[in-house]
């Protein structure tokens, strides 16, 4: 069972080659950066003060070597860190996607798609980013050690002053900054709100135009924008103040180091060049400590993100698959026996092989729960669902879903051409009859490139009615032994709906079909109609018969 800790640990250990290599190189880079001010001091001492030209050339060559080293090590350290970070994120992204799509389901429970996508992108990235910062944490430590050694070699008291003085200094700036940062964080969030409101108003442009509300919308945006401006300005002032305090404290610290160093130099304990180097190192030392603070923040984020990823990976499956296979052809005989699930209270329902059964659920929840059990997205609390006499939990999920297809009311289309979408459920069979039966050929006819027109993600480039017809064509093209369709034509006009109802009967001839709907056109085409009420079967007959004899049925279907 994955936990946040194990997710994070695995993300790092999978990429250890790059993390370790990157750390060594980043440490070399930090060391090089620390040496630059030291070398400036040395050149002042050995060449500028003495006027020794040979020494100048010699030390400039050393400086060149240091620059070359720090440059090359930075280049490859960054590349290794980025690779480790990106690759870890990529793996986690695929792992999360794989878990969400797992046939057993259960990962989406209680999570909106947007939240899951954020976990697969943002959280995966933040966990990966831990690999990207670890080398720099190691490097910061190396820089700290090198500076410490250099400082202590210049002078023990001065070195101790700098080394012991820096942490309290940074702690002090952190203390000053914390309330400011918190405030600025809150206010930035409120500032981001304005952009959200603008996007929202533009998204609802047609609605605004439809009721002539543009002026009211502009006035509302202006108010939001001004509120956001006020919040941003408060945040910006806090930020500026924070920056100022840090600058002032650092400057004061350097003044103290200079004072102590100058006295040591005056006493002859250190040279002028060493004084210069010590001041330079004091400035440089702030960097490693700042790196530690940054790494700490990234680690905290990475841990929180790893927890979220682990919670998806460890989500309990919605159903436990069986191992049974269906021998030979499936007759398509479905039987619900005493099914109690959600709003259902002991439903007994039989769908005979080859029939077109209409199911009317005045309570939409009954329909959802009935189809959930048939698709095995959930198992009923009591009772059973059988296919050709085999209880569904005994069947392998892949086997079951190749025989029984439940086409949900809100089924999604995917990015790709219209034809790709319809072909998705087929095993390469011809799709023309399905396109025609669902009147999706007409949809293709109105699109610029016919069936080869690209459909945007989740079918957003199509209207509701077009989407429904393409989704129905996909379900029909899959040609399963048992097909259940749920309200397949609610967004289709009455003329087309009547045509679809007739064609559905023809294209499904000889195979079992269940239409859960209150559409009179579809129900009129069914062999038999079953009416559920209060979670149980209340009536059965033909559409015409029920219209004649059952006032409640008339009220549900025809009013």
């Amino acid at each position: 069972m994955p936990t946040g800790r194990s997710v994070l640990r695995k993300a790092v250990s999978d990429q250890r080659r790059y993390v370790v290599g990157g750390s060594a190189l980043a440490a070399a880079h930090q060391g090089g950066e620390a040496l630059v001010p030291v070398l400036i001091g040395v050149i002042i001492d050995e060449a500028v003060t003495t006027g020794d030209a040979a020494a100048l050339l010699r030390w400039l060559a050393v400086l060149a070597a240091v620059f070359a080293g720090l440059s090359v090590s930075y280049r490859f350290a960054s590349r290794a860190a980025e690779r480790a970070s990106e690759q870890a994120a990529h793996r986690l992204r695929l792992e999360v996607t794989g878990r969400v799509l797992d046939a057993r389901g259960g990962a989406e429970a209680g999570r909106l798609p947007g939240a899951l996508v954020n976990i697969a992108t943002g959280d995966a990235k933040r966990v990966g980013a831990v690999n990207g910062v670890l080398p720099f944490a190691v490097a910061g430590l190396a820089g700290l050690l090198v500076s410490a050694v250099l400082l202590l070699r210049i002078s023990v008291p001065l070195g101790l002053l700098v080394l012991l003085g820096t942490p309290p200094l940074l702690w002090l700036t952190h203390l000053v900054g914390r309330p400011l940062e918190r405030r600025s964080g809150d206010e930035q969030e409120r500032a981001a709100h304005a952009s959200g409101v603008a996007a929202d108003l533009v998204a609802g442009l047609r609605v605004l135009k439809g009721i002539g509300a543009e002026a009211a919308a502009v006035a509302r945006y202006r108010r939001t924008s001004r509120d956001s401006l006020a919040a941003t300005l408060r945040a910006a002032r806090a930020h500026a103040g924070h920056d100022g305090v840090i600058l002032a404290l650092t400057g004061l610290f350097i003044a103290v180091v200079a004072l102590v160093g100058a006295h040591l130099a005056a006493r002859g304990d250190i040279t002028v060049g060493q004084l210069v180097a010590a001041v330079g190192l004091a400035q440089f030392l702030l960097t490693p400590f700042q790196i530690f603070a940054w790494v700490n923040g990234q680690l905290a984020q990475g841990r929180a993100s790893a927890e979220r990823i682990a919670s998806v990976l460890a989500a309990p499956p919605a159903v436990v698959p069986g191992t049974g296979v269906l021998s030979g052809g499936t007759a398509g005989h479905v039987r619900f026996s005493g099914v109690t699930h959600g709003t259902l209270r002991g439903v007994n329902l039989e769908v005979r092989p080859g029939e077109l059964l209409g199911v009317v659920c005045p309570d939409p929840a009954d329909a959802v729960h009935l189809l959930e059990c048939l698709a095995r997205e959930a198992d009923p609390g009591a009772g059973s669902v059988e296919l050709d006499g085999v209880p569904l939990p005994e069947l392998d999920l892949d086997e079951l879903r190749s025989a029984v297809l439940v086409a949900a009311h809100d089924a999604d289309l995917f990015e790709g051409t219209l034809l790709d979408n319809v072909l998705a459920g087929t095993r390469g069979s011809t799709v023309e009859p399905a396109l025609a039966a669902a009147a999706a050929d007409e949809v293709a006819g109105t699109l610029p490139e016919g069936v080869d027109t690209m459909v945007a993600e989740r079918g957003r480039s199509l209207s509701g009615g077009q989407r429904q017809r393409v989704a129905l064509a996909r379900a029909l093209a899959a040609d399963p032994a048992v097909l259940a369709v749920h309200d397949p034509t609610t967004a289709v006009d009455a003329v087309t709906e009547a045509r679809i109802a007739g064609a559905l009967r023809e294209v499904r001839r000889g195979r079992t079909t269940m239409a859960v709907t209150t559409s009179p056109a579809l129900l009129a085409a069914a062999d038999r109609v079953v009416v559920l009420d209060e979670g149980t079967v209340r009536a059965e007959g033909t559409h015409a018969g029920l219209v004649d004899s059952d006032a409640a049925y008339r009220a549900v279907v025809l009013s």
Partner: protein
Amino acid sequence: MSTERELLPTATARRTRAAVGQLLRPRRGLALGGLAVLVAATAIGLLTAPLLGHIVDLVARGSTDFTLPVAGLAAVALARGAANAWGLALVSRLGEEMLADARERFVERALGLPLEQVEKAGSGDLTARVTTDVAVIAKSVREALPELGRSVLTIVLTLGALAILDWRFLLAALLATPIQLWTVRWYVRRAVPLYAAQRVAGGALQHQLLDTVGGARTVRAFRLSADHVGRVRGRSQEAVNLALRGIRLMTRFFSRLNLAEYVGLSAVLAAGFWLVGSGAATIGTATAAALYFHSLFNPVNAALALVDDAQAATASLARIVGVSDLEGERETGDGAAPAGASVKAAAVGHAYVTGHDVLSDVDLDLGDGERVALVGASGAGKTTLAKLIAGIHRPTRGSISLGGVSLDELGPAATRRTVALISQEVHVFAGPLADDLRLARPGATDEDLRAALARVGATAWVEALPSGLSTVVGEGAHRLTVTQAQQLALARLVLADPPIAILDEATAEAGSAGARALETAAGRALEGRTGLVVAHRLTQAAGADRIVVLDAGRVVETGTHDQLVAAGGRYADLWRAWSGTRS
């Protein structure tokens, strides 16, 4: 519908600069003040190096009293911190106020654009500008610009200080400049297209995940898991590859800057060597020059690395200004007021693409208060007719008048007060529910809102919301069902209270049970108005005063439900199939 996209315009570089000038002009004082304070802060900071150099000189001279220079260092630290904070606050205010003005002007123009123009460009164009482009500019204003400004000031003033120490130090330092300029040119040429590709790949990955994860149930039902994991892998790998190309480019950029640092630093040290040797400078001066140059490393790197941010912000700004400069709808009305709430379409024909008529010779009269249902297959022209009557498109042929006044004479503003169109597209505006409703009537009291909700049968679920009318709804908050969102649209119609209302497929997307609730709500929202209803469910048509059947852009039948059923035409066939009575 037209297939070509006519993207909204982008401003020229010159026009963009002029727009920035317009935003800047009223704030000239603030801009100059902010700049002056930041210059002062940077100049004060530059005193650190000569003070340290002075200490070095005092040591070299054997002096032991460092009180003055150290006190100077402390004073510099405090003054620099204070001036920096003040200057940054002023510059932030300048940038944020300009940004707020620019985005408000943009939204005002964007919402005022004729819908026809937005639809031609695709609403994605406008949305991208209002989200991505505004965010890019805001990020620049908040992060890049202050950093860039500070770095540039530091660089300029440091170079000036070097010149004051000795002009030959400046000359030595400038040896680094050609390398830096060449490096930036080299980098920007490669970085701009690469970062654009990274954004595209990131967007594609996000899209793919939304597609796959959002449709997870469908993926499972059709056993498409392997295919979809493969799709995500492809998109993700592409994003990873581009990120790695990005880091390679960036590290090569910094390597070249390292070279410039080395060249400049060696030159300054060599100049110091020569100047001290010839007695033109003290060791302290040479030290200060070297420290100055070393302290330039970070600001130079920061400024150069921000060049592509600045370029991205300029491009975004051009897209914002392009829309802000557009003209709004032209007000053509001559003040004529509609008499009553009748609708008359005479010999109306329409084609989106010349030669492909969607409507031909449509005559339609709606009397004051009459309710007419439009029935027909998809593509019969129902939605087009609805849009023409609502004044969203102008008919290619024929004329439309409301209350006896033609749409041209009425003008867009009066048209919108006279007729409302509730379309298939439902949108719940993010924010408190009451705010959403008040878009339709800004001055409405809570009582008005409740009355409107009651009229469309929404009282029960609104009362059940966690905070009633104040519940925050919409994207990212409490999500309403499709039925609830459509009831909300009808409540807005009640509040806007136009004499004429058109409902286009307003009940289409709800499940069948929701559809019935909405039909009732629609009926009540239309009370007291002239109503044209695009009917999906025949029961909705059956309840109307009159039914008009459209086929391939022409009116083929018209009459009451009973008349049409008796006539035995198309409508009668449909109705028979519905009611289960076989002929």
